[in-house]
């Protein structure tokens, strides 16, 4: 229970801080969006791992950082090659987010 509260609270703090940060360049929004998706995937994956008691801090942190950077890099590479590679990141992370959410849902259903 405490975990959900802390997650929600930190998310609110993050949103509040983020709204104070100045607007970034329009060109970057495309990479940022993929990075946001990667971060969302990492967080949900982390929550799932935590619930399944298979959470590994190193894996979580590196996964978060690497996924975000790789996704943004992939989108940039796609732009260079004129291939919409960011779609691959969107599809992969989207699928994984849904899978992880489904797992979390089942876990919660079992628990309560």
């Amino acid at each position, binding site marked *: 229970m*405490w*975990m959900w509260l*802390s*997650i929600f*609270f*930190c*998310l*609110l*703090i*993050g*949103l*509040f*801080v*983020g*709204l104070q*940060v100045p*607007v*970034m360049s*329009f060109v*970057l*929004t495309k990479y*940022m*969006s993929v*990075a*946001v998706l990667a*971060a*969302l995937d*990492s*967080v949900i994956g*982390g*929550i799932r791992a*935590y619930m399944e008691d298979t*959470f590994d*801090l190193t894996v*979580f*942190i590196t996964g*978060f950082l690497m996924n975000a950077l790789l996704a943004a890099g992939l989108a940039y590479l796609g732009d260079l090659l004129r291939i919409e590679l960011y779609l691959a990141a969107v599809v992969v992370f989207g699928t994984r987010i849904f899978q992880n959410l489904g797992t979390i849902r089942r876990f919660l259903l079992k628990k309560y």
Partner: protein
Amino acid sequence: MVQSRGAQISIAVVCMILGIMLAVQYNTTVFHKASMIPTTQSIENIAAMLDSSTKENEALNEKVASLTLQLDNVRQVDQALADLQKELVNTQKIAGLSELEGPGLVITVNDRPNNLQNNNNPNEDLIHEADLLMLINELKASGAEAITLNNERITAMTEVRCAGPVIIVNQNRIGTPFVISAMGNPDLLESGMNLGGGIFRQLKFQGFEISMEKSELIQMPANNQQPKFVFGKSK
């Protein structure tokens, strides 16, 4: 438990970073507005706008072409008007309807001083309209461009007519001394008047007070008698 606490903290921190990223992304998207992010709908709108702009452009191009044509026509009309204006000025000059200035010759002629002792006919001491007409004729022959008689412009239809003690020119009475101004090359006019047997010489010989003087600048009034055409119709 320690493991669990670390996991909780790390997830919370990552959540905070995620929140920051989300907020920045949202802010940026809102700031740059939907119009700058091409969506299918906006692309269709832009395509339609481009289409209508192209059509408008074509219509405007046609308008430019027609206006250019019109402008050309107007220029031609302007040119024609300018030509007409020039012609009008020239014709007015010829008809004596405009004021003139220029070099020329001024002849002053007066009656013979009365010599009653001679018991002559006083008529013979006077300058008559025929003398003036002959002088004017001589000046015309010598290349005068325009002539005035006592400031009355001599035109094609000007009468020089005896009316008792005065002479009528342009329906105005004039008397002695008569001043005939002729516009033209002063030297040519002078030599023309000095021809032997000419009217100038004759009048001088007969003892009339007659003299001529070259002038650098003669001012000539316009003929204010507007010619009226009642019977004559232009063909």
